[in-house]
């Protein structure tokens, strides 16, 4: 009992599946298909390229007067981030729903056994990829943008810029995770993307049509508005504080992933 059992670890045929196994599998899946790998890299490159273009345009226009004071060079450099968010959100949906559309998800679930492990592994893989690419892209856009256009304001404090970069990168990461959660919940690319746009990207805009007293009360708790609080350099009275923004946004992401887990475990695959 004491000496023999020590060797069983090394056998590949024994022992339980670890989360690390499933993460490796999902990592291979993510990077072995163009629709996910190229999309992520392209979104990163586009963010930098568009940031440079916007900054260069701002520099050549070099508006005088009040308008110039309003143009924050960091905001300009990240002018395309709304587009990046959408691509990243869609990426999250596709990573999951694509597996439902081929039927591969059944193979995955039956091979792994515990479905929540599959959700966790997909979340880890996409969060890692989006955070890494996002950090490079956002930093690159801001750095290149500032080199091209410094604006008329005094130089922006470095710590403030880092807060924007980190907030933006984490927001992108969270949006990808919301996409993953919606993919598991709706099991279809069209349904997942539609819901993502309806609730995160377009829905909040429509809410502004409601009376102001209503929107003021809960608008700021929506994922997109909590995200704005995470990403903004200056505090905005219409938004939550930065730390409250992080908390509310994290609650959305974690909450949606938990709902996805409950549904996936309860439903037939």
């Amino acid at each position, binding site marked *: 009992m004491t000496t023999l059992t020590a060797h069983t670890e090394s056998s590949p045929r024994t022992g339980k599946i670890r989360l690390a196994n499933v993460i490796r599998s999902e990592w291979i899946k993510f990077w072995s298909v163009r629709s996910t790998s190229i999309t992520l890299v392209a979104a990163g490159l586009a963010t930098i390229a568009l940031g440079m273009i916007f900054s260069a345009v701002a520099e050549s226009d070099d508006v005088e007067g009040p308008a110039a004071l309003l143009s924050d060079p960091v905001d300009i450099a990240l002018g395309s981030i709304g587009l990046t968010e959408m691509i990243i959100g869609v990426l999250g949906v596709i990573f999951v729903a694509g597996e439902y559309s081929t039927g591969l998800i*059944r193979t995955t679930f039956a091979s792994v056994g515990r479905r929540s492990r599959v959700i966790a592994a997909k979340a880890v893989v996409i969060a890692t990829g989006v955070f890494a690419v996002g950090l490079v892209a956002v930093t690159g856009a801001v750095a290149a943008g500032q080199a091209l256009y410094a604006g008329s304001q005094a130089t922006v404090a470095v710590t403030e810029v880092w807060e924007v970069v980190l907030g933006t990168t984490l927001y992108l990461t969270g949006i990808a995770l919301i996409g993953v959660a919606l993919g598991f919940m709706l099991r279809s690319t069209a349904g997942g993307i539609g819901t993502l746009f309806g609730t995160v990207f377009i829905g909040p805009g429509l809410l502004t049509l409601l009376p102001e007293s209503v929107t003021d009360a809960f608008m700021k708790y929506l994922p997109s508005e909590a995200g704005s609080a995470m990403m903004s350099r200056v505090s905005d009275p219409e938004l939550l504080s930065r730390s409250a923004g992080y908390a509310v946004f994290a609650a959305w992401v974690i909450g949606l992933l938990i709902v996805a887990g409950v549904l996936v475990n309860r439903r037939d695959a």
Partner: protein
Amino acid sequence: MIEVANLTKRYGSFTAVDDLTFAVQPGIVTGFLGPNGSGKSTTMRMILGLDAPTAGTATVGGRALSRHDRPLTSLGFLLDAGAVHPTRSAFDHLRALAVTNGIPTSRVDEVLEIVGLGEVGRRRSGGFSLGMGQRLGIAAALLGDPEVVMLDEPVNGLDPEGILWIRHLLQDLARDGRTVFVSSHLMSEMELMAEHFVIIGQGRLIEDISVDELRVMAAGEKTHVRADRLDDLVGLLRADGVDIVSDDRETVSVSGLDPGDIGAVARDNGIALTALVPEQRSLEDVFMSLTADAVQYHGAPNKVAAG
């Protein structure tokens, strides 16, 4: 061994699998037969832990598959050969599957060789023919070198050579002492492959039967008869429990009487028999009649113009 006990699956008010009980034994190939929509795939999904049974249990080696430490090393399966991302290579597809169960990547190359996809393993699987896709699905089933292999309609889309290949492969696996469970809706595909059959219709068990027992059933109850005074003979043969229908103008088929009895009646009445052919039905025929009441989707009967 796969064991299914009182397995039932309802979708709303529709019962897809109805109180199924059977066991699939190691060492032989077992065919899982039933017409379209009879519940074969649903049963397999429950064995895989994908669909939750409404009642009953399905176990592999005594435990639910999801309770196995490394499911792929206990049971290898093919559900749907199309369940592959078209732009992913066969190699990457199998590698992603292998690592979940801690199966070394060297095994991926091995199974690609076994199924004859060694040359094309690095190519995107979307370009594969139907037969190549089927082979990839079988490769996935073999990854974990499992004790139990379960394949849903693996012969679909294979050419005769492919069918022969899969027959030998499955028989070799069975000879190794493994449990092999293969579904089909065509007896003709299975009769040379399987030694035992689980036959279902409308979700219910119809027969759990060896191929030898099935061949006994195939010995028909009917005898085709031709005679010079056929009408007279038919009149003489009529009795309770005897059923006579005419096949065509010169032939009748008689059930409920031995060929010998028919011959004796003809001799005693001086009627010359020109044909006395006991029916030997094909296994496909036996299967069709066993499941006739349970066929869910009847085609419209062929209409032939009366002239």
